[in-house]
């Protein structure tokens, strides 16, 4: 600009208005997350250290991965309530399969993935071909998987996780420039995140998922193979749950109730991340930050000295608040 513009009131307000237009477009999850993060940093400066941040990332990666898988199903307009039980199955089953022998790790993962794919297939087929509402189908599967897992290990967890297994959930790569310690869980999340971002936002498959959730009839009449897309969505969700389960097992150890409630947390993370429960909208990055937001709230509550029970209460309030906010703001648009 050759000429100098005098900052008149008009110019200033125009600039402010365009900044505001940009701000309005930012999905609410980001400002919420950063505000909460700032609060946490204020209360506990460890969070501002690289170590602290990386520890947070390590802790949160499994939920983020679960949430991405759930998002794909939610985007088609369905629900996947079985992912918590899948995690339970993975944790219990693999501790059994490992039998304290690190050499069994890879085969165990393979078997778990196989089981996951099978579960996802059954979910998808029941919903697509038997026309059972996904809420019910995955609810049934949740019981099936949980019962099956408990039966398999005879009700009590057996054995520990070997070190190489724990690496997925707990491990760090040391001496990384800038980041110091980089959690392996975060690496997995980044890989999965990029992969799912690509699948969901850049491939035809992802667009078809959104189309089905938006208007299944229009999608079908445009040649979308609705049933196939749905089945794949459930398979992906189950596979991501398996991956998350491997990491959770490695992080927290073996525990019978480990998977319970995770599906609700994943759905909550998605909702905070702007996913509509009826389908048609979704974003991988927003959902990851939705998971971060959930976890940062937990951290905040811990730092505030609130005992665990309050964590649940606040989580509940946040979920309602987030959805109410989205619902009210979309009403205003209309």
């Amino acid at each position, binding site marked *: 600009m050759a000429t100098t513009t005098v900052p008149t009131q008009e110019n200033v307000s125009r600039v402010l208005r365009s900044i505001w237009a940009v701000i309005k477009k930012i999905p609410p999850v980001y400002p919420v997350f950063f505000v909460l993060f700032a609060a946490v940093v204020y209360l506990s400066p460890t969070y501002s250290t690289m170590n602290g941040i990386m520890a947070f990332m390590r802790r949160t990666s499994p939920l983020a991965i679960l949430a991405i898988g759930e998002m794909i199903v939610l985007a*088609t*307009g*369905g*629900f996947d309530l079985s992912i918590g039980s899948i995690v339970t199955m993975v944790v219990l089953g693999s501790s059994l399969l490992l039998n304290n022998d690190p050499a069994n790790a890879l085969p165990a993962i393979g078997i778990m993935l196989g089981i996951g794919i099978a579960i996802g297939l059954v979910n998808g087929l*029941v*919903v697509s*071909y*038997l*026309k*059972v*509402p*996904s*809420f*019910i*189908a995955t*609810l*049934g*599967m*949740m*019981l*099936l*998987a*949980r*019962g*099956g897992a*408990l*039966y398999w290990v005879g*009700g009590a967890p057996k054995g520990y996780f070997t070190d190489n297994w724990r690496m997925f959930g707990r491990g760090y790569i040391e001496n990384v420039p800038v980041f110091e310690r980089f959690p392996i869980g975060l690496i997995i999340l980044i890989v999965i995140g990029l992969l799912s971002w690509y699948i969901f936002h850049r491939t035809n498959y992802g667009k078809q998922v959104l189309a089905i*959730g938006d208007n*299944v009839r229009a999608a079908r009449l445009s040649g979308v193979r*609705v049933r196939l897309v749905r089945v794949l969505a459930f398979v992906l969700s189950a596979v991501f749950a398996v991956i998350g389960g491997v990491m959770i097992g490695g992080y927290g150890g073996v525990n019978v109730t480990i998977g319970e409630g995770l599906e*609700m947390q994943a*759905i*909550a993370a998605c*909702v905070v991340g702007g996913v509509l*429960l009826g*389908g048609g909208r979704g974003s991988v990055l927003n959902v990851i930050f939705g998971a971060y937001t959930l976890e940062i709230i937990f951290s905040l509550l811990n730092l505030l000295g609130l*005992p*665990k*029970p*309050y*964590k*649940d*209460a*606040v*989580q*509940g*309030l946040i*979920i*309602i608040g987030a*959805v*109410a906010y989205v*619902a*009210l703001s979309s*009403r205003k648009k209309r």
Partner: protein
Amino acid sequence: MTTVTATRRTFGQLLRSIQIPPVYFFLLAIFLVGGILDLVFSDGQIFSNPAIRLNILVRSVALGIVAVGQTLVIIGASIDLSVAYVVSITAVMSSFVMQGDPNNIPMAILVVVGIGIVIGLVNGLIITKLHVNAFITTLGTSLILKGIINATFSNYSGSVPRSFEYFGYGRLGPIPVSVIILLLVVVGGWFLLSRTKFGAHLYGVGGNAEVARLSGLRTDRVLIGAHILCSLTAVLTGLFIVSRLRSGAPWVGPDGFYDLESIATTVVGGTLLSGGKGGVWGTLAGVMIFSVLDTTFNQLGVNPYLTIVLRGAIIVLAVASYTFRSKQEAA
């Protein structure tokens, strides 16, 4: 020719209107299967034992009462995931207030009924006024309740006086009081749904909220009413449980899976998840299917985990039998 087809049609339609919910055939089937297994594996000892037959009924009470409430809400095209914690908070609070003293019973009941009404009201208001999805709303309130309960009580608290145990253990002649109460609740639910304006309006709101609105109905009020009634049935279940356990603990609700199981039995009973169709008799059958299953397998010494597996399978298969023929895609 029109008259002939008219009479033929109306007779057929008449038959259809005395609908026996198809779930009763499942119940019959489960009974038969159970009976056969019984004969084969334990010489018929299970079903011939009156104590066991009683057990089946009593097992049905806790879930049955709250499932009736859930059925109401689902008919209205809504859902209530908070019932498990309403059960918990009722159990804990009532036991706490009673402190083993029969004089405190009325006060305790008043307190928990009040709590139930408030929770139902809150659920209903958030769903109708803030337009938050019912799934999310009741998930949220359940978490809030969970937090409050666990923060205040960490173990069994207080106790229930002997006289109150009449609810859980008492009998009127050969029939347990609890079963009578269950039947009263079911009949009450049936009456409400099929014979009152509220019930008719609830079906309308669940079937097509737009039509209901255009007909001048206050759809908000109807839905809020349904949620309050659902919470109250959860309160009743909580009172039943605490009268059997003699003291209330925070985990009784979630441990019993009352949230997901009340939904499951409602749907297995033939009520549509999308609302507008269904009824409490079907739900009762659904509850009994689970009870028969649990008792039979328990007696046969089957691994309890397999029972869970079978439960899951039955839920899916039962609903699939209703839906596989429909042209409508579910999500």
